[in-house]
C-alpha cells in the first residue's frame, strides 16, 4: 500500500466518523423532538415524591464520597511529604553521627554496652588521641589479672581488650612498633601458634617452659604460669619480650 492509498484510507475513515457523528447528532435531535411531543401531553403518571428523597440522599452521599476522596488525596500527598522529611532527617542524623566525634563516641558506646558481656572495645580515636596510658589506666574491673611490670622505654598502652576469659593489652611506641600481651585465664586453654616455616626455641620464663617463635619478622613468646596461659607478640626485639614475660605480676 503506497502513501497515497494510506492517505485515502485515513480520509475515508474520517468521512465515516463524520457521517456517524452526524447520525449521532440526528439521533439526539430526534430525541428532543420526541420529548417535545410528549411535553404537549399531560402526564399520565404522577411523579413519585420518594424519588426526590432518594436522589437528594444520593447527592449528599456523592458530596461525602467526594470529600473522602479528596481527604485521601490530601493525606497521601501529606504522607509522601512527611516521608521525604523523615528521610532527610534520617540521612542528616546519620551524617551528623559519623562526622561529629562526640556524638559518634556516645552512639558507639551505646552499641558496645549491649555487647559488654562479651567484649569491651576502646573507642578512642587513636589518630587524634594524644593521651597515653599506663598501668593505672587499666579497667578497674580487671582483678586477678597478670600485668607485665616491665614496659620497654617509649612504649605505652594503646588499647585494652577484654573477652570472657581473655585479657589483651596493646602497647605501642612512636615508631609504630607494637607489643601485644594476652592472658588466657582458663586453665584448659590450648594455645595454638603458627610455627609453619618459623624459627622456634624453648625458653625459660620464671622457671616455666615457654616457646619463642619467630616468623615474618614477628616474635611470639608463649608460656604457662599457674592456671593461666600467656603470649607476647611483637615486631620489636625478642629480648624485650622475654624481659616483659618475666616481669608479669598478679594484680588483685
Amino acid at each position: 500500500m503506497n502513501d497515497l492509498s494510506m492517505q485515502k484510507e485515513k480520509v475515508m475513515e474520517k468521512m465515516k466518523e463524520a457521517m456517524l457523528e452526524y447520525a449521532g447528532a440526528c439521533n439526539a435531535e430526534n430525541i428532543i423532538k420526541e420529548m417535545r411531543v410528549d411535553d404537549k401531553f399531560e402526564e399520565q403518571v404522577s411523579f413519585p415524591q420518594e424519588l426526590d428523597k432518594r436522589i437528594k440522599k444520593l447527592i449528599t452521599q456523592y458530596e461525602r464520597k467526594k470529600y473522602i476522596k479528596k481527604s485521601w488525596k490530601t493525606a497521601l500527598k501529606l504522607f509522601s511529604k512527611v516521608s521525604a522529611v523523615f528521610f532527610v532527617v534520617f540521612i542528616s542524623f546519620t551524617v551528623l553521627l559519623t562526622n561529629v566525634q562526640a556524638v559518634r563516641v556516645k552512639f558507639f558506646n551505646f552499641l558496645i554496652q549491649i555487647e559488654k558481656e562479651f567484649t569491651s572495645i576502646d573507642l578512642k580515636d587513636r589518630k587524634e588521641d594524644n593521651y597515653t596510658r599506663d598501668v593505672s589506666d587499666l579497667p578497674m574491673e580487671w582483678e586477678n589479672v597478670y600485668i607485665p611490670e616491665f614496659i620497654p622505654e617509649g612504649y605505652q598502652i594503646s588499647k585494652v581488650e577484654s573477652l570472657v576469659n581473655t585479657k589483651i593489652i596493646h602497647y605501642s611506641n612512636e615508631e609504630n612498633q607494637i607489643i601485644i600481651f594476652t592472658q588466657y585465664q582458663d586453665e584448659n586453654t590450648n594455645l595454638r601458634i603458627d610455627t609453619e616455616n618459623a624459627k622456634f626455641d624453648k625458653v625459660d620464663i620464671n622457671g616455666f617452659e615457654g616457646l619463642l617463635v619467630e616468623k615474618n619478622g614477628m616474635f611470639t613468646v608463649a608460656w604457662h604460669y599457674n592456671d593461666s596461659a600467656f603470649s607476647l607478640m611483637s615486631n620489636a626485639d625478642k629480648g624485650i619480650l622475654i624481659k616483659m614475660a618475666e616481669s608479669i605480676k598478679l594484680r588483685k
Partner: protein
Amino acid sequence: MLLFLATIKDENSKKKLEALYLKYKKDMFNVAYRILDDYQLAQDAVQTAFINIMDNLDKIENIYCNKTRAFVIIIVRNISINLYKKRKKHILLEDIDDTLPDDKQMIDEMIIDADILSKISSKIRELRPDYSDIISLKYFYHYSDDEIARLLNITPGNVRVRLHRAKQRLIMLLSEDRELTKSE
C-alpha cells in the same frame, strides 16, 4: 486558599447536580416508565442513570441545552431497556458470540452524495434506540468505550459489539435505500 477553592468547586458540583435533577427528573421518569411500565422499576432506572451521570458531571458544560437533555434521555432510556430485558429474561443480543462482518467494504462502496445527510437523518430513526443511542454517545458525545460501558451499565465488550452492529445496521439501511433508487 486551595481548600477554599475546592469547597467552592464542591458546592458548585452539588448545585449543578441539583439543577440537573430538577430540570430533567420528569423527563427521566417518564422515559423510564414508558419502557418499563413499572412505577418502582422506573424509579430504580432513574436512580441508576443519575448515579452514572453524576460520575460524568464534569463533561456536562451546560445543563439547560438540548444536547444535555438528549444525553440524559439516552442514559435513562438505555438503563431502562437493560432493566426491561433483564426482567423479561431476554438474552442480550451482545451476549451472542458471533463473527461480525467487516463494514469497510460497505463504506467504500457507498457514495456520499448530496442527499446522504438527509438519508442519515431519516435512517437513524429506523434503528433500535439502543443502537442509535450508542452511536450518539460514541460519535456525538465523544465518550470512550469504557465510559459508555459505565454510563449504560454494560461491559466494554458489549459496547464494542453493540456499536459495531449499530454502524453495520445504519450502513445497511443507507445501502438498501441506494440499491432501491438504482433499480428504479
